[in-house]
């Protein structure tokens, strides 16, 4: 039996999902005004807005579950690096458009399968959020799968850039399927999702799109992990410094 209460587990579980959405959305929003052409600039921001909306719902719910009166902004702006629980992949710098595409695609596939499963959660709030989110995920997946194909099977340069991006991202992939105590408590309670199931589907979806894109998914030489324990790469600190600075300079104010 775990020492973790169900409430604590649910809080952490929800917080992790929120952190992933916030940090990934943050990286994506860095493209605003700098996209490869105007249409894609707008498209990228639609996805970033979806992620931002998602993190707000999840933070609000996490705050509610925790019951200490923390709201979405307390959770987003007043926690330090060691308290953030997103996967390492999400916090990596946006890189070139190939890296952004691969990272986003990996996350989209994960989100699509994860939230599809989460629709069956016994926690009604999470299930309701999942039912909303999964619709967004389907579009994100479609949009980025198309980009993976275009860049993978486009020009020699784009193919090379995609291979570089895949190599660069590969060490962060397996972290997304690790199960820890929180996951186990949530799965046992019928609230959470078995990430082994997500992994199987993730691999199948990625491989299918990669086949069309003339790309290959390498087995990583080694895995990096630790995001969920707050053991991040050095990138997150800079991201948070930028994101949180106004709130931290002027705490407790209305904006």
């Amino acid at each position: 039996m775990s020492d973790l209460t169900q409430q604590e587990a649910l809080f952490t579980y929800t917080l992790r999902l929120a952190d992933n959405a916030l940090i990934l959305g943050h990286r994506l929003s860095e493209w605003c005004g700098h996209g490869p052409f105007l249409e894609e600039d707008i498209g990228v921001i639609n996805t970033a807005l979806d992620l931002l909306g998602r993190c707000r719902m999840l933070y609000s719910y996490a705050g509610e579950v925790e019951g200490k009166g923390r709201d979405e902004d307390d959770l987003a702006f007043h926690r330090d690096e060691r308290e953030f629980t997103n996967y390492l992949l999400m916090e990596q710098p946006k890189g070139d458009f190939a890296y952004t595409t691969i990272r986003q695609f990996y996350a989209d596939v994960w989100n699509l399968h994860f939230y599809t499963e989460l629709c069956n959660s016994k926690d009604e709030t999470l299930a309701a959020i999942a039912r909303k989110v999964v619709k967004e995920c389907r579009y994100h997946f479609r949009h980025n799968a198309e980009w993976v194909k275009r860049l993978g099977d486009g020009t020699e340069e784009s193919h090379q850039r995609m291979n570089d991006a895949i190599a660069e991202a590969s060490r962060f992939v397996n972290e997304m399927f690790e199960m820890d105590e929180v996951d186990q408590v949530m799965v046992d309670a019928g609230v959470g999702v078995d990430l082994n199931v997500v992994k199987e589907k993730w691999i199948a979806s990625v491989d299918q799109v990669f086949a069309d894109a003339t790309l290959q998914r390498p087995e990583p030489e080694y895995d990096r992990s630790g995001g969920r324990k707050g053991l991040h790469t050095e990138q997150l600190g800079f991201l948070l410094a930028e994101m949180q600075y106004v709130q931290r300079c002027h705490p407790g104010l209305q904006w």
Partner: protein
Amino acid sequence: MVDQYLPLWEVFVRSKRGMDHKHCGSVHAADAEQALQYARDVYTRRSEGNSIWVVEATHIVASQPDDQEAFFEPADDKVYRHATFYDVPADVKHM
């Protein structure tokens, strides 16, 4: 470096079921699927539609302003095609 530009597509959006698709602008995209996605991203951000058509601009055949007289003016004198042409006494119902 040769600058690369994407072709132009015209976008038609149906605002709700039962309505016509209406021209609302254009996007640049490399192919049909991309044009469709960008039409969605650009022209339905505020729930403006539930169905989209895109067509590559070069495929549209349009009448010319010079056709104006020959095409459209012959219809002008066919007033008998309009209901208001006919006098029906006011006490006749359901006309």
